């Protein structure tokens, strides 16, 4: 069986043109996909049964027992933490928010450790953005800042930006200019018309220099800024001002380095300033395929895109206080539920140590570094392959993920619904 136009459940590009060949309920062929998505579609490794630690050893348990234990741990906790969510679908995320509300829990997503500073900057100065098709059809100048899409979002260039076929172009390769700003010559930097190699930590300075130049105050810019010659910055400003449509894409290289949200704020203000001269947009290169979906869900349900603490009986948001790393570093949580992410592979040591010291439960199809921190793991069906549901592309375009093979595993939503129902019963709200 051939299934066409399948959205890929890997990165924020959410390419929806994948063709899969399915034989005997297995994916045996993948077309149009990048190497990252390909590996996910063809992956065979997974956890087969729920597991629980008993007397220090892992034992296989039933779904009923694992769900009961999870509900018991969460209900008994004073400061439960619900974390992850970027690798599952909106409908499951909605249940997660209801569960957090019922528990008075703190709920946060992987956003907290990636584009958290970008969102804080947006909350200060807004976000001049667009859907990716605008860039594809119109942008004659593309700037990749602190990101390396050739390796991290491999099809971004061919589907949406540099090489994408666009209405207003005869020849996109010839007619589009590419600027890359990075601290090293990445693969993406190699295809740039202009590569700005900035000293580590120098993004804020470069952005300020560009803003000064756009405002006609190039005279205050010194001969060299963060290792970059003024002449090069002048060339870039000229290219920006002469562009019909400039599109900036930025990654963690600028949001998670020194300056953090101040860098992004500066970048957004540069883009807002450029809009007085021509058309400019700026967009974050979101990582997980549905990291943006969780931001959307939590916002319409609770009012904030991440890091919401329900312990006061209202939705309370204060990044730095209610963000997952901070709360774990303070050793506050006394139970943790991890869904559709892998903090064990990414969090600082002190946070991981605390997660290992408290009852931590993971809902995830696969064994991963987080498994080692857990007391319970519940395997589930894989969204976008075994479960249909909504995901939001990095630009906010919602796409329905497809189910292409049958599975015996329950979905994230089914498991969370059962936990939520059991928690309500234990709380006497059943």
């Amino acid at each position, binding site marked *: 069986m051939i299934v066409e136009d399948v959205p890929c459940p890997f990165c924020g590009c959410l390419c929806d043109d994948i063709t899969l060949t399915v034989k005997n309920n297995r994916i045996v062929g993948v077309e149009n996909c990048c190497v990252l998505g390909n590996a996910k579609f063809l992956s065979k490794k997974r956890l087969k049964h729920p597991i629980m630690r008993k007397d220090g050893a892992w034992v296989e348990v039933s779904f009923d027992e694992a769900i009961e234990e999870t509900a018991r741990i969460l209900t008994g906790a004073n400061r439960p933490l619900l974390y992850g969510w970027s690798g599952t679908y909106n409908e499951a995320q909605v249940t997660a928010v209801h569960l957090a509300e019922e528990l008075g829990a703190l709920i946060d997503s992987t956003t907290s450790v990636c584009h958290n500073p970008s969102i804080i900057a947006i909350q200060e100065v807004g976000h001049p953005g667009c859907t990716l098709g605008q860039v594809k059809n119109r942008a004659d100048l593309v700037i990749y800042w602190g990101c390396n899409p050739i390796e991290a979002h491999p099809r971004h260039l061919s589907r949406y930006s540099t090489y994408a076929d666009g209405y207003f172009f005869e020849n996109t390769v010839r007619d589009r200019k590419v600027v890359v700003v990075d601290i090293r010559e990445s693969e993406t930097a190699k295809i740039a018309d202009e590569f700005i190699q900035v000293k580590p930590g120098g993004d804020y300075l470069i952005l300020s220099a560009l803003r000064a130049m756009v405002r006609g105050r190039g005279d205050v810019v010194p001969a060299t800024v963060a290792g970059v010659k003024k002449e090069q910055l002048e060339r870039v400003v000229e290219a920006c001002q002469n562009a019909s449509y400039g599109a900036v894409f930025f990654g963690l290289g600028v949001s998670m380095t020194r300056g953090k949200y101040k860098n992004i704020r500066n970048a957004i203000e540069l883009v807002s300033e450029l809009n007085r001269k021509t058309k400019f947009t700026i967009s974050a290169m979101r990582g997980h395929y549905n990291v943006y979906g969780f931001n959307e869900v939590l916002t319409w349900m609770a009012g*904030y895109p991440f890091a919401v603490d329900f312990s006061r009986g209202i939705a309370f948001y204060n990044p730095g206080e209610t963000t997952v790393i901070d709360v774990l570093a303070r050793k506050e949580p006394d139970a943790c539920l991890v869904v559709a992410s892998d903090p064990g592979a990414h969090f600082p040591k002190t946070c991981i140590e605390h997660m290992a010291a408290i009852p931590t439960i993971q809902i995830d199809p696969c064994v991963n570094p987080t498994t080692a921190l857990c007391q319970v793991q519940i395997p589930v069906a894989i969204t976008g392959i075994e479960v249909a549901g909504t995901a939001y592309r990095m630009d906010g375009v919602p796409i329905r993920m497809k189910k292409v093979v049958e599975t015996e595993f329950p979905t994230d939503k089914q498991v969370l619904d059962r936990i939520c129902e059991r928690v309500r019963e234990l709380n006497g709200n059943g």
Partner: protein
Amino acid sequence: MGEILLKNAWVIDPISGINGELMDIAMDGGRIVEDVSGKAEVIDAQGFLTLPGGIDSHTHTSGTKVNFGRYMSPEDMRAGRTQKKGPMHITSGYSVPTTYGNSYKYSALGYTCLVEGAMAPLEARHTHEEFAFTPLQDSFANALFDGNWGMLGAIEEGDIKRTAAIIAWTLSAVKGFAVKLTNPGGTEAWGFGKNVSCINQKMPRFDITPTEIIRSAIEANELLNLPHSVHLHCNNLGTPGNYTCTLGTFDLVPDLNDKRQTLYATHVQFHSYGGSGWSDFSSKSEPIARKVNMRPQIVIDMGQVMFGRTTTMTADGPMEFNLYRLHHDKWSNHDVELETGSGIIPVNYRRKNLVNSIMWAIGLELALLVESPWQCLLTTDNPNGAPFVKYPEIIALLMSKKYRDAEFATVHQDTGKRVPLPAIDRELTWHDIAVMTRAGQARALGITGVGKGYLLPGAEADIAVYPMRVDDIDPAQQYEEVIKGFSQTEYTIKRGRVVSRRGDALIHGENTTFWVKPEVPPEYDMTHDERFKEHFERYYSIRMSNYPVQEEYLHRNYCIRTETDL
């Protein structure tokens, strides 16, 4: 949805010709019926004012830009926080509440139907997801066509049937209810940072003007026999002197439909400005209202501004950028490929600001100068002019000259020289208000046929009971009683169930999404049109097969099928 008997209801139901009668209303299975058995639950309305459920024909409550208004505004979220209570979830937000917040607050005001004013088709799935979490009101979405390349191309070719066919395909695909044009031509021009100044300026990319877009969309809309007319946000919103552009637009509109208007012009307050700049900015509500009075084929809504903080959000991207350049606060923009734009900025309308004071006066003037309440509906373009929670105050202002004068004394001292408001004595009646908040909306939207906006047997049992005995209140004097009475229903009944009482939601509820499906002949079905398909696959960033909103997003829904003249 069992049997209910609402006794002693003092009813105003303009569509049914009822203007203040003490009645019993029987409900069964979610509808109003002739009679119920002795087993029916009896609710005593105590002689309180009882109206059909409120209908907001132009509001922004669900979808991409609304949610971005929340996302970028933690300060607004903090300004409206409520706790869990019974079946009510935690909510956040003042001017852009969370979905549950919108639903509970609207329900407390007696509203049972909401029309999302602007849904970008490409992001329609998002709007429908939020509808599912706005459970106490039925939902309708206006789909944006102002910059739709397929439609503009067909208009450029002069092919009205193809124009209609593209509208039909898109509306069915995105489960939309009506055709919305926001700054037609301007949002597409904004793709390259440009705009169009008024209806006769050619677009940069298509060889057509807004005039042609508006005329063709109207014609196509009527070919498809859609329940609602074209829903227009005129060009040139918010600029001094724009009233001439608005008058010119109204002159374009033929009278093509005997059941309802041919054009619905939204938030006309923002389009009724005189002057050549901010220094001589003035009200032009009089010529606008005169034009509406002469042209029964036009219905407008107020777009009333009320003082205080709010968030502006519209598909009119270039307008929001201009507003950003005035306010210098944060600015978000979100252009949608091949379709439309959008922008968001927070604003604070201040009494001490002359322009803001004039804007406040203009909205009221329109409602008072348009003779027929059926032609001027009550809105704030929520949350653009003000959050909808201000509706009770607006009602009171329209019913009381005394209240208007008291408020007028607090606005900028030069306002009197620029507006006619102090000279207007008209005070609207309870019946006028019933028309402007539900009956007029039902008729303008073309949804009386599906049981909306009236209270006779056969209608949907959507009812609002306000704790006011009309005979005991003189609204001209006791305007504070009017505000209080409209701020919180005694009972809000939705589809035959009491969903809200004295400000609290009582059940989780479940909304119905209304959408249209024009039945087009096979040769006009764009699903099989090679040219349309090729253009789509080439220039959109998603595949055509993944574009239509699947049935899974609709939950309860009601598809209005129309016979077309294609």
